[in-house]
């Protein structure tokens, strides 16, 4: 029996060390660089961080597991308002509040996903759209949540340090999830769900897991958003926001994690650069989506990870050995 090789044998210690170093770097930047940086720029970077959190969840659900989830902003809303409620009405540390926001969103994901994910893909598309809509109606009609006028008086606690701590946590979580047995199952669900079931794997359960994890990180993004500008409004979580995130995943490339993250960074920063043509932003987005689907449906990185561009040996499942007869 050949000895086991590959990542499993190397052990996780190296990964943990790198992670710790990255966290240290983030807080180092927070302490020494941020105070000297133009707040406008810091703002952009923080917003990029929040986008990254929202996108990584959808990349998992849509890009890797192939589920048509179209209402991601709805989960952000649950996270945002959940965090806001916890922070406004208890004395808990705001970041714990963000964690609760994530949990609330995850729970919402469970409620939405469980009945729907056992049906074929299009139903999920419609339900998630509907969920996005219902959540907003609910918020707008609930005075305790501030209604349509929004919720104000929230503490401003979202800093570069906290944002990117969460980003690193999220990225590590999702990356490790994807590089595990679960990750293989997610990809298999996307590729051929019927075949996967014939192997005795509970595909509905796998889809729900991906969905709930995706919702959690969207909730965290929402939670951080609620503590960013002292107030939140339902209008921040409309379908347009869901499309923003969807565009980042699609343009970055389904089947990749770094692709959508790059796209998220670019598309979040871009409106700032393109401020003069802000009116045309959605038109440019939609054209980008259409053209990408027709001309380069695999997106920016074509389903590969950023690191694969630096490797000479192609990534294992994307070998271009050519289909021999």
């Amino acid at each position, binding site marked *: 029996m050949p000895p086991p090789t590959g990542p499993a044998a190397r052990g996780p210690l190296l990964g943990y060390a790198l992670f710790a170093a990255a966290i240290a770097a983030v807080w180092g930047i927070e302490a020494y660089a941020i105070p000297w940086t133009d707040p406008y720029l810091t703002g952009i970077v923080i917003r990029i961080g929040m986008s990254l959190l929202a996108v990584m969840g959808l990349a998992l659900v849509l890009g890797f597991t192939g589920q*048509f989830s179209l209402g991601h902003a709805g989960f952000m809303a649950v996270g945002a308002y959940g965090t806001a409620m916890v922070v406004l009405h208890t004395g808990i540390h705001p970041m714990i509040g963000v964690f609760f926001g994530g949990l609330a969103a995850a729970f919402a994901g469970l409620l939405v996903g469980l*009945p729907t994910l056992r049906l074929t893909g299009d139903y999920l598309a419609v*339900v998630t759209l509907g969920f996005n809509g219902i959540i907003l*109606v609910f918020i707008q009609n609930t005075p305790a949540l501030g209604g349509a006028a929004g919720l104000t008086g929230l503490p401003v606690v979202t800093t570069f340090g906290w944002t990117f701590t969460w980003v690193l946590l999220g990225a590590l979580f999702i990356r490790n999830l994807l590089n595990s047995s679960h990750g293989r199952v997610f990809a298999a669900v996307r590729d051929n769900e019927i075949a996967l079931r014939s192997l005795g794997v509970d595909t509905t359960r796998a889809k729900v897991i991906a969905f709930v994890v995706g919702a959690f990180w969207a909730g965290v993004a929402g939670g951080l958003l609620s503590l960013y500008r002292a107030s939140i409004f339902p209008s921040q979580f409309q379908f347009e926001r869901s499309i923003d995130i969807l565009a980042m995943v699609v343009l970055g490339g*389904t089947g990749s994690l770094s692709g959508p993250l790059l796209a998220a960074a670019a598309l979040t920063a871009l409106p700032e650069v393109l401020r003069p043509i802000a009116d045309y932003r959605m*038109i440019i987005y*939609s054209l980008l989506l259409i053209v990408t689907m*027709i001309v380069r449906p695999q997106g920016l990185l074509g389903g590969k990870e950023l690191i694969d561009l630096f490797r000479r040996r192609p990534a294992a499942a994307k070998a271009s050995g050519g289909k021999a007869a």
Partner: protein
Amino acid sequence: MILFLQQLINGLSLGAIYALIALGYTMVYGTLQLINFAHGEVYMMGAFAALYLAKWLGVDQNPSVPGVIVVALGAMVFCAVLGMTIERVAYRPLRKSSRLNMLITAIGVSLLLQNIGLLAFGALQSFPSLLPEAKWELTAGLVLRSQDVQIFSTTVALMLALHHIVERTQIGRAMRAVSHSRDTAALMGIPVDRVVSFTFAIGSVLAGAAALLIALDKHKIEPTMGSAYGLKAFVAAVLGGIGSIPGAVAGGLLLGLAETLVSGYIASTWRDAIAFILLIGILLYKPSGLFGKHTVEKV
């Protein structure tokens, strides 16, 4: 009781509109298994096309029946062309691609049209009366408007026409074959591309008619009306059984009635949520919808 009957009239009126739009969704889904997100925008564009055509022809100054008919035909033809163009340019190249890609393109087209609309038409625009209007008080408190009559009669006429086309013509038979199995239909010599185009055309025509009816009813149109009505009409199609023509009609009427009754008896703020609550309900109990066929995936 009177209130209930009034709600009934209003509900059926709204429901008829939903039904007309829902038919477009259901027919395209039946043929291509695609949720045509852009359909709502075609409907919206139809309303604006009707507005500009009416103004250009002067029908808004001189309301008349022939004038309205010309505007109606113009709007419907415009929608048909728009719908077919979208299919040809945005969807056909992706037919061999994954369904997710087609869905995303549809979302893209929908957004594009809506935002072009916002830029071109601004916000709300008022829509003039193109026909003399009347109200008939059936009994105290129960009002039937000429618009309601227009909506009912037009919808019934269009649905009879659709039924005739789908059940009794060759192209209708071809449509049914393609929605059963595109590959088999192709193998049998059916010109699938043309049938798909035709399907889009018919659906768009119905949407155009619905747009004019709503414009004459509410006297206002706006670039966001497509997403508002479109999504609900799609929910109606799912309620009735996506892919089923009678289902779209039933779903549309049911949704219209439900929304109006909830709005009237409970609270109007929950009106928008009703569609989604019904949707969740049907998906939990009978996902294939009221009239849905249990589609068996070929293994």
